[in-house]
Each structure stands twice: as structure tokens, then as C-alpha cells.
């Protein structure tokens, strides 16, 4: 299929999905008990019936849910994601402010998981009965089984408490100016633990996937041919076998982008990383529905784009797919 037609079709699918996500999320958020008026009254230390009614009227919460939904969709179509009850700011500004931090965390975690996971998988596949392979197997089972928040706490205890080489929380130290190389290094220093925590579970999965793919590839005829041609072992492994073994890993990585974002909610909360995940967490606790819907919309767009890019990468990696729909 022509690449342009394929791209347009996928974009249209994506747009349909985004509308569905908007409607479904709106309904789900409004099904939760309590509303922003309860939260604001709680934070105020109580509020009269009049104040509660005023708050509900100010944010349109006194209208029926279908009416609120229609108004919300109308605003979103004009690029207006609403105003945050809790943060007193337009949601679009809030989401854009936090998106960079989450993108940095998620992308660094995915790259870390892909690179290290694949490397571990290759190491395990080269000598399947060796000690390294056994260690990788143990690591992948443990990494996959451990919940993200638990891994985060363990890393904090190990590398921020007992052996304090990394910071506990935040994205940068207060003392640094927010520009220049020193700031970039400071952010990188703060990024190590959150990124590793988020990457852990996926690293384990990718190592298993890469190991299985490599085992299959290394026993294939074309590898035997490559060896017969006298290619060096590293070239056979890293150039010829790995390229084929990577295709399922790429597919899984793309599909898991949404899960990585979900994991970011926990990681950002544990490490006080100022991203969309923490914003989502605070919005849920405060029933700040416009902000939560804005974060979910941003996440949905990112997931859809990531899947689109994965499919494109898949087509690049495997020429056979270019003629299919």
C-alpha cells in the first residue's frame, strides 16, 4: 500500500480513537464519587451550602452530564481543554508545562529498557546454558514480577539512603540556575533512578523477548550461511541475527508505550518528578476533571502517535510488510 494512503488511514483511525477516548474518559471521571466542590470545601476547612452551590455553578457542575459533555467536546474542538479547578490555570498550559518532564522520563526509560534489555537477551542467547543466561533469567523474572512503586522504593533505599549517590526527589536541585550544562547534568543526575525504575519491568520483558528472538535467529539457515562465509561472530550476532530478532521487540515496545505512561504516574509520585503522571495523580485525588481529562487526552495522543511510529518502524525493519495493509 502507498505510504501516504497508509499514513492518512492511520491518522483517521487515530482521530476516531481520540474522540472515543474523550467521551469514555469524561463519563468515567464523572462516575467517581465526590466532585471538586467537595475537595475545595475540604481544603477551605468547610463551606456553606451557598459557597458549594456557587463553586458548582462556576464550573458548570450544576448542569446535566450530557450537557457538560457536549460543552466539553465543543471546547476541545476549538483547542480549549478547560480551566483547572485546583491549579487555577488553563489545562492546556498545565499539560504543556509538564509534558517535557514526562517525555524525558518515558523516552529515557524506553531507550534504557530497549538497549539494556536487548543486550541482556543477546548475552543470554549466545550461551543459553551459561551462568550469564541463568542470571538474566533470574533478573527477568524478578524485574517482571516487581511492582514499579516497590522497585522505586528499593532503589531509593539502596541508592539514595544506604549508598547515597543519587538524589531522592525532584528534577533538579534548588541551587542551580535553570539553564546551561550544569543544569543539564543536574537533571540527568536526578533522572537516573526514576528512569531505571520505570525501565526495569520493560527491560526484563525485552531481555526475554530478545533472547527468544536471538535463539530462533541464531539457528536459522541464513546465519549458518553467514558463518560459512567466514563472517566474524560479533558481526553475525549483532548485525545479522539481531536485526531479525529486534522486530518483535520493537512491536512490543510500541504497544507498551501506554503502559510506560501509566507506570510514570507511580514513578513520578514516588520521586516527585514534575510530569504529567504526578499531575494526573493529583487531579484524581482532587477530582480536577478538566486537568485529568487533559492529561488523559495528551497521553492518548502520545500513545496513538507512538503506535503509528512503531508501525512505520516495523515496515522499515521488515520490507515484506510494505506491500500489505
Amino acid at each position, binding site marked *: 500500500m502507498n505510504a501516504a494512503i497508509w499514513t492518512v488511514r492511520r491518522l483517521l483511525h487515530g482521530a476516531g480513537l481520540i474522540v472515543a477516548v474523550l467521551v469514555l474518559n469524561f463519563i468515567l471521571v464523572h462516575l467517581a464519587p465526590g466532585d471538586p466542590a467537595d475537595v475545595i470545601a475540604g481544603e477551605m*476547612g468547610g463551606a456553606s451550602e451557598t459557597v458549594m452551590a456557587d463553586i458548582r455553578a462556576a464550573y458548570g457542575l450544576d448542569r446535566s452530564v450530557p450537557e457538560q459533555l457536549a460543552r466539553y467536546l465543543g471546547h476541545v474542538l476549538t483547542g480549549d481543554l478547560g480551566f*483547572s479547578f485546583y491549579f*487555577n490555570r488553563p489545562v492546556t498550559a498545565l499539560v504543556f508545562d509538564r509534558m517535557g518532564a514526562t517525555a524525558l522520563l518515558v523516552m529515557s526509560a524506553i531507550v534504557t529498557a530497549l538497549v539494556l534489555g536487548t543486550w541482556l537477551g543477546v548475552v543470554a542467547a549466545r550461551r543459553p546454558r551459561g551462568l550469564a543466561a541463568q542470571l538474566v533469567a533470574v533478573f527477568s523474572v524478578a524485574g517482571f514480577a516487581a511492582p514499579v512503586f516497590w522497585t522505586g*522504593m528499593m532503589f*531509593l533505599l539502596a541508592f*539514595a539512603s544506604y549508598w547515597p549517590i543519587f538524589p*531522592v*526527589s525532584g528534577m533538579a*536541585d534548588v541551587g542551580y540556575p535553570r539553564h546551561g550544562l550544569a543544569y543539564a547534568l543536574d537533571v540527568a543526575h536526578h533522572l537516573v533512578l526514576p528512569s531505571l525504575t520505570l525501565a526495569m519491568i520493560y527491560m526484563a520483558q525485552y531481555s526475554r523477548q530478545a533472547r527468544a528472538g536471538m535463539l530462533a535467529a541464531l539457528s536459522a539457515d541464513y546465519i549458518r550461511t553467514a558463518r560459512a562465509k567466514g563472517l566474524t561472530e560479533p558481526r553475525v550476532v549483532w548485525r545479522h541475527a539481531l536485526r531479525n530478532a529486534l522486530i518483535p521487540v520493537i512491536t512490543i515496545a510500541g504497544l507498551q508505550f501506554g503502559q510506560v505512561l501509566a507506570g510514570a504516574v507511580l514513578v513520578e509520585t514516588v520521586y*516527585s518528578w514534575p510530569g504529567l503522571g504526578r499531575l494526573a495523580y493529583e487531579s484524581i485525588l482532587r477530582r480536577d476533571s478538566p486537568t485529568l481529562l487533559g492529561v488523559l487526552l495528551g497521553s492518548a495522543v502520545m500513545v496513538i502517535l507512538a503506535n503509528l511510529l512503531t508501525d512505520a518502524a516495523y515496515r522499515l525493519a521488515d520490507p515484506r510488510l510494505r506491500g500489505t495493509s
Partner: protein
Amino acid sequence: MSISIGRRGAIVAAGATGLPIASHAQAPDPKRGGTLVMLGASTRHVNPALQSGTPAGIPGTQIFASPLRFDDKWNPLPYLAESWVLAADGKSLTLNLVKSAVFHDGAPVTSADVAFSIGVIQKNHPFKTMLEPVEGVDTPDPHTAIIRMSRPHPAIMLAMSPALCPILPKHVYGDGRDILTHPANTAPVGSGPYRLTEFKPGESITLARFDRFFIPGRPYLDKIVMRIIADAPTALLALERQEIVYIPYVTTVRDAERLGKQAHLQVSDKGFEGIGALNWLAFNCAKKPLDDKRVRQALAYLADRPRMLKVLQGGKVPVALTPIHPGSPLYTTEVNHFDYDLKKAEALLDEAGHKKGADGVRFKLTIDPIPGAVETSAGVAEFLRGQFKRAGVELELRTAPDFPTWAQRVAGQEFDLATDAVFNWGDPVIGVHRTYLTRNIRKGVIWSNTQSYSNPKVDALLDAAAAEPDPAKRKAEYKEFQQLVVDDVPILFLHPFPYTQAAHKGLKGLPTTIWGPMSPWDEMYWEAADRR
């Protein structure tokens, strides 16, 4: 400084030098400079004129000055008001303002600003009783404000505190826009020791020293950064690692003990008498079988609070016997202590007609613990479940995932029992009356009389005490009130909240007055040279 009863009975107070006086003992040589990086809390805005609570109150009391401040013995001290006179009939309070005070934008603080602020608070603050009798504020000159009241209102003094009476600049907040959504709520202009330089919602609040603060030489710190760390264990670790150096409210004994063992940290349980936080168990008096006082009393006899506190708090926290915080001068212990008595509890339940069934069960109740630390919420519910079962009362836990869920059940009066954390806010008129007055039973409003408790004698006593100018008579009225409420058991009082503040040892001048962290930090400074 002197506080005396004048010839005609007027209470007169003034700073002898005409300058505000330190709220607690001064260290010999406070040093200037340095940054305080501390734990902050997420807040919608930093204007305490519109809401109570510590998240807005802590930054708010640094940004805004108030007419008075208080020491650690409940004595009022000069602040924006260098002296004041409470009239003999108790119906007016004259504030004589410091002449050198200016707002962060350079405009002078005047009596018009005081009158404007009191109007804003009266209209918008949730504590309606706090300024209820105020009829108006006269401003005979720019530095004199006379608060007129329809009746004596002893609570007016504590209502002038930093967290309750921030003085807002009229020229900023009185520009005709809705005060509730005014942009200056997140970009405030006050006259306190620090001015706000950055407000990043959910992330951080940054304050810088206000060089024209009206107390010469103060404040000492250059900058305060309040970092919001949502995860409690991470915040503790950050304090241990010195990424932050001050936590104003450590909420559990376990955490305080852990921090107290750190060589570089100081821990203090002083400074929490003013907010007077109590943890309690509320009964829905409108629902059967809890509408019967004997049933509530029986459950109180079963609770065994000393044992509960031993199990959950290591015995480090006292029992709170009454609706008034033990740190208040109005607190009394001359009430029914409801010591554990299984026989008495069973007799009361039998008398109320709730005999044990064949399965040993008399009746079933639900309990909604307020989301929070296990020791003060879910743990309490679990403990009580075991206690109540001894007499055949089954308790089912309904754990709420978050505050809005819990608040909807409690405010909607859709509960049997609920644990709750409620503050006294200094004077009982401000934070205590709301829970017991019959006229404050308001469905859908959290921290009103959600127990649906009604006792005409209690109503009369509270109304009398609210307007009683004689301190001795007032104390006697509140004593009787406490005895009645404790005996009626609309609420079983569990314990004062075990708050502590933890800070780096090099940080001096920690706020330990009755309002603690919710008072101006103009006396806080770094002793360690490397921190400045």
C-alpha cells in the same frame, strides 16, 4: 510589653518600645542569609483570607501580616497593630497600626486595608462564627481601625491571628474582580516578612525576603523554597538526606521518632496548641441504633482508648477527653473518662433493647476511616472492630480511596461511624462550635454538625460562652459544655494529633508559639555559616 486591665475594665496592651516584640525568646545573635528548602503542601492558592488549613496557611502567614500574633502562652503580641484596646463592654477592638508598614508593592498599610480585609474574611472565610458579630470597621485615621461588634466577642483576639486575619491590600484585591478567583490569590501582595517570587502549582512555592518588612532587621533568611513531595516516605528520606531541611508537620509518632534519631535533626512537638488538631470517632446520631445515647455510651466504654494508643502510637500520645484540645487553657479533665468496662457496656446495650442474638451479634455498624496515616485512621477502625466485637457489635470497614469519596459519605450523613481529624483553631467559637450547634446541622457540608447532634442545653451554653466577656465565667461555661458533650457522646474523642516539626539542627528560631508553623518565620535563621 504590658498587658493589663485598665481602670474601666478595658483590656489594654502595647509594646513598650512601640515596636512589635518577638513571639518567643530571642537567640543572642541571629545571623542573616541563607535559603530554607522545606516540605510544602499542594494548595490552590496562598490567600488565607479565603480558606483555612495548613497548605495555604503556612505560605500565607509569611506573605501576609496580621494585626496580632501570639506567644506560646496564648498571649497576644503586637504585629501590624503596635497596640490595641478591647473596650470594657467587649463590643469594640481598637487597633493602632504600625506606621512604617508597607505592602510588597510599596504602598502603605492603612486602616482602610484592615477594614477591607475584615470584610473579605467575614464574607468568604468558611469560619462564619469567627467574625459573626462584627458590624463594621471604623477608620478615623489611616493608622487606627476600630472593629465594632453587636455583642461582646472574646474570640475576636484570636481571630486577629496571622493564619486567620491576613491584611490584604485594598488597592490590589478590591479592584472589583471576584475575590475567589482573583489572580492575586496566586500572585499575592502582602506586608509579611517574605514576598512570593514563584508559585508552581503542585510543584513548589518560592519566597524571598521582603527588605522593607516593618520589623527592622528581619527576616533573616534570604529565601524559602517549599517543595511539594507527594509521597510521605520520600519526603522523610529527603529530610534525612538534607535535600529538604524542614518539615513543619510530621504526622506520626513513628516518623518523628525515626527523624529524632538522626544526628543532624531537631524534633519539636511544640507549636500545635493553636490549631488544636483532634482525632475522633464520630457517631451518626440520626441513625438507629446510634440515636440512642446509651448505645453510644456503651461503645465508648468498649473503645479502651489508652490501650488503642499503646497499640497504635506506642503509648506516646495522650487520650483527648473532650472536644477542646488538651493544649487549650479551656480544656478540662473533669468529665466522664469512659474507662474500658465491658460489663457496663453490655448492660447499657441490653437496657437499650439490643440483646445478643443466637449468633452472639447484637447489631452491625459501618465505619468510614478518613484517608490518612494507618495509626490515625484505618488502624483505629481495625482496633475498634476487635473491641466492639467483645460485646457483640460487628463493625464493617468502608475504606475510602480518597478524601472526596469519604467527604461525600460523611457530609451526606451516609455513615454510621467515621474517624475524622478536626481542628479547634484557637478559640472554641472558631473551630469547636460548628460541630455541636443544632443550627449547624447542614447536609452536604463537611465539618458542619454532620453527626446531627442536638442538645438545647449545649446550644445555650455555646451561645452564652461565645458572648461572655468574663474569662472565668466563660471557662466555667465551656467546662459544662465539655461535660455535657462528653456524656452525650456524639463523638468519642481519641487523641490530639501527634504533630511534630523536624528541622536541621543548624536552623534556629523554629516557630513554637501556639500557632507554630502557621506564624511568621521572621525569627528563623541559619546558625551554620555554610548554610548562609
